[in-house]
C-alpha cells in the first residue's frame, strides 16, 4: 500500500480510530493490533512477502532470547552469526544473487574463459527487505554487544520489526530507540499528532507534487541522453537531485508523521541535506538512519578513525562502497559509493570532517558568500554522484557525464522544464531554507502565526497535491 494512494488515505484514519478508541486499554492488544495492521499493509503488495518478514522476526526474536540466556562467548558468537547469516542470506538471495552470478560470468569472459550462461533466479525482490533486515540485525548486534536487553515480549518485537509507517523504506530504527516505545503505554499528544499531520502534508507535497512532476523529465533526459547537449543533461541531473530528495525525504516525513499519530517517535532521516557546506555535513544530513547504522555497525567496529591513516582510508572506502551496494545490485551504486568516499576522504585526512556541525547561516536570513559557495560546491559534487545513482550502467553514467562536460554545456536547453516544475523547485528551496533550523518544513508550533493563515497554507498545499500531483509513482527507495 503506497502512502500516496487512496487505499492508504482510507486505511490510516480507520487504523487511527481503532488504535486509540478500540484497542487502547491493553498494551499487548494494542501491539497485536499494530502487528495485524502492519502485516495487512505489507501484504497488500504481495502476501508472500509476509512469510519472509515473519521468519526473519522469529529468528531474531529467538536469537535475542538465546543471547540473553548465555554468557558463553562461543555460543553467543554462533547465535549472532545465525542472525547475520539469515538476514544477509535473505538479502544475498533476493537482491544480489543474480548480480553476483552475472558478474562472475562476466569476469571469466573478460579473461578469455567464458562460462556457460549463468543460472539466474526469477524471483521478485520483496519490498523493503533491505530496511527491515538491517533493523532486525541491529537488534541482534545490540544484544550481543550488551547495549540492549533482549525482549521476551514477542508481540512487541514483531510490532517493532513490522511497524507499518517505517516498514518499507525506513527510517531504519534501532531497537534501542523504537522497541522500548512498544513496551510502554502510549499516550496521545495533541501537539505531536498535529505536528505529525503537518509533516505528512509536507511529505506528500514533496513526493506527489515535486518528485512526481520531475520524474517524467528525468526519465526522458536519462533515457535519451545521447540526443541532448550538456546543459540539458545538467538539468536532468539537477532535476534528479530534486526528485530523489523529495521522493525519499517525502516518504520519511510521511512515515515519521504517521508514527507520531500513534504516539511513536521515529528518528530523523533528513535534515535539509542540500544546504550542507561540505560532503561530511551532507552525509550527516542525508539518510541519517542508514549513515549512522553503517557508522555504528561497520565503521566503528573496524576501527573508525582511531587507527592508522591507511586503515582510516580503507574504513571509509568500505563503508561508502557497502552503503552504495546496499542500495542495489549494480556497479553504478558501487561507483556512487566510491565517489562519495573520494569526496569525503580529503576532509577526513585533513581532520575537517566535523567543522560544520551547526546549521548554515544560523539565525540569519541569507548565507554569506562563502557559505553560498560552499553549498554550491557541495551540491555540485552530489550532483555528479547522482548521475551514477540514476544511470542504468557504468557506460551510461560515463557517457552522461561526458555529455555534461562538453562544449554543449553552454548550449541552449533542449528540454524546457514547465513553469510548474521551475515554480515547485523554487518553492522547495525557499520553504526549506526558511525552515532549515526546524525538524521539518511545516513545523510552526513555536511561531505566532494566525490559524487562518496556517490553515490557508495547508489548504494551498492540499490544493497543489490534488491539482498538480503527478502520475502516481512508487517511491524510489522501495526498490532498495
Amino acid at each position, binding site marked *: 500500500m503506497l502512502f500516496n*494512494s*487512496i*487505499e492508504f488515505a482510507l486505511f490510516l484514519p480507520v487504523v487511527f480510530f481503532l488504535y*486509540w478508541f478500540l484497542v487502547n486499554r491493553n498494551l499487548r492488544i494494542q501491539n497485536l493490533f499494530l502487528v495485524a495492521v502492519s502485516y495487512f499493509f505489507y501484504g497488500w503488495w504481495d502476501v508472500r512477502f509476509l512469510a519472509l518478514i515473519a521468519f526473519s522476526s522469529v529468528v531474531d526474536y529467538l536469537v535475542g532470547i538465546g543471547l540473553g540466556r548465555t554468557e558463553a562467548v562461543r555460543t553467543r558468537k554462533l547465535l549472532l552469526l545465525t542472525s547475520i547469516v539469515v538476514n544477509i542470506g535473505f538479502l544475498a538471495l533476493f537482491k544480489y544473487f543474480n548480480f553476483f552470478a552475472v558478474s562472475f560470468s562476466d569476469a571469466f569472459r573478460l579473461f578469455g574463459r567464458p562460462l556457460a550462461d549463468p543460472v539466474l533466479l526469477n524471483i521478485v525482490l520483496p519490498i523493503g527487505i533491505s530496511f527491515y533486515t538491517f533493523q532486525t540485525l541491529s537488534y541482534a548486534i545490540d544484544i550481543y554487544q550488551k547495549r540492549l536487553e533482549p525482549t521476551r515480549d514477542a508481540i512487541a518485537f514483531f510490532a517493532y520489526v513490522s511497524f507499518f509507517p517505517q516498514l518499507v523504506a525506513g527510517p531504519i530504527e534501532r531497537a534501542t530507540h523504537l522497541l522500548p516505545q512498544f513496551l510502554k503505554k502510549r499516550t*496521545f499528544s*495533541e501537539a505531536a*499528532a*498535529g505536528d505529525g*499531520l503537518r509533516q505528512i502534508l509536507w511529505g506528500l507535497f514533496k513526493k506527489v507534487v515535486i518528485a512526481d512532476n520531475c520524474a517524467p523529465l528525468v526519465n526522458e533526459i536519462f533515457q535519451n541522453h545521447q540526443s541532448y547537449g550538456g546543459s540539458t543533461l545538467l538539468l536532468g541531473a539537477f532535476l534528479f537531485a530534486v526528485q530523489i530528495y523529495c521522493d525519499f525525504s517525502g516518504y520519511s516525513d510521511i512515515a515519521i508523521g504517521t508514527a507520531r499519530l500513534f504516539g511513536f517517535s521515529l528518528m530523523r532521516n533528513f535534515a535539509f541535506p542540500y544546504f550542507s557546506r561540505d560532503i561530511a555535513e551532507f552525509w550527516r544530513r542525508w539518510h541519517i538512519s542508514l549513515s549512522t547504522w553503517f557508522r555504528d555497525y561497520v565503521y566503528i567496529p573496524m576501527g573508525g578513525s582511531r587507527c592508522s591513516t591507511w586503515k582510516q582510508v580503507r574504513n571509509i572506502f568500505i563503508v561508502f562502497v557497502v552503503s552504495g551496494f546496499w542500495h542495489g545490485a549494480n556497479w553504478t551504486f558501487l561507483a556512487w559509493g566510491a565517489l562519495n568516499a573520494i569526496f569525503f576522504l580529503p576532509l577526513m585526512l585533513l581532520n575537517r570532517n566535523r567543522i560544520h556541525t551547526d546549521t548554515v547561516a544560523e539565525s540569519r536570513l541569507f548565507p554569506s558568500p562563502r557559505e553560498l559557495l560552499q553549498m554550491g560546491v557541495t551540491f555540485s559534487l552530489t550532483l555528479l554522484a547522482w548521475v551514477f545513482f540514476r544511470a542504468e550502467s557504468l557506460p551510461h553514467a560515463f557517457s552522461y557525464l561526458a555529455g555534461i562536460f562538453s562544449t554543449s554545456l553552454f548550449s541552449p536547453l533542449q528540454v524546457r522544464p514547465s513553469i510548474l516544475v521551475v515554480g515547485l523547485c523554487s518553492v522547495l528551496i525557499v520553504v526549506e531554507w526558511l525552515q532549515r533550523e526546524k525538524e521539518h518544513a511545516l513545523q510552526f508550533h513555536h511561531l505566532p502565526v494566525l490559524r487562518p493563515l496556517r*490553515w490557508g497554507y*495547508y*489548504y494551498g498545499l*492540499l*490544493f497543489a497535491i*490534488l*491539482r498538480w*500531483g503527478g*502520475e502516481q509513482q512508487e517511491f524510489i527507495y522501495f526498490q532498495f
Partner: protein
Amino acid sequence: MRRFLIKCAVFMILGLFYMLANYSINRYFIQTVPLIENHGRVLIVGDSHTKRALDPEILGSADNVSQLAEPYYVTYYKLRHLLDRAENVDTVMVLFSYHSISSAHDHKLRDEPWRSQFFNQYYMLSELPTVTGVPVGYDGYLKILIRRMCLYPSLRHDDLLGKYSNADEMHLGNHEIVAARHFLADGKQRESSKVAVYYLRKIISLCRERDVRPILVTTPMHKDYLKLVPPSFVAKFEALKEEFSAAGVELWDDGHAEYADREFYDADHLNSSGALRFSRITAERLREIIPESESRADKRAQLAPAAALAPRQP
C-alpha cells in the same frame, strides 16, 4: 484528543464544503453551457480510424468528435451526452471495424495509459464508472474527478470533443505490430468482445430513440493488415453486418476499398491524401441520403414545436 478530532473535523468539513461547492457549480455548467464546437448535422464518432479518415470540412455540416482508441462503451455515454445538447444533429456516423469488436478494449478503464486518457477526457460523464461488464480503476477516476470538478469552477468541460486530425506522412510496414495489438494478447488470439457488441447495439438503439440516423462506417485498411485479421473476427464482423443490415441500419463498408500505399498513414489509418478521397466519397453518399433541409430540430419543430423546446431528460 477531543480538541484534536474537532480541529481535524472542522478542517476536513471546510475543505469538503469547498470541493462540493465547486463540484455542484461545475456539474451545473456541464448541464447548461452549450458545446462550443458542435454545429453540424452529422456527428462522427469512433477512434483513430474515423479521426484520421473523415474531414468534416469536406463533409459539410459535420463534426468529427472521434478520439484515439475509443471503445464503444465510452462512445455510447459520450454520444448520449452530446445528443442531449446538440439539437441539430440528425445523423451519427459510427466507426465499425474488425478491431472495434476486439476484447483489446475491454480493460481500457482499468489499465494505464488509457485509463488516465479516458478519465481526463470523459470525467464529466457520471455514468462512466458504472459501465456494464468493464473493470474500472476507480481510484484513477476519483483522482481525476476531484482534480477537474472539485478544485475550482470552470465553464468549459468539453475535453470529450475530439477532432479530425491527420498528417501527410506514410509509415507503412507496421501491419504485424498493429494486428498483434488488436487481435493478440500474450501471443494468443483474442476473443471478440461481448461488451463491445452490447454497446454497439446500444448506440444504434440510442440513435433511433433520439430520431437520429445511425450509419456504420468502415474506413479503408491496408491489404497487408487485412490479411492478418483472424477469420473469427471476419466472421463476427460479417454476422453483425447482416444483423444490422436486416434491422435497416445504413452500412458503409470501405474496409477493403482500393487505396494506394501513398494514401495510408500506416497499416490501418489513412493519411491526409487518403482522408481527402475518402471524405469526398462519404460526402457524396451523405448528400444522397440526407435531404438538405430536414435536420432533426427542423423535423421536431414541424411535428411538435412545444416538445422541441422543452428540456429533455439527460
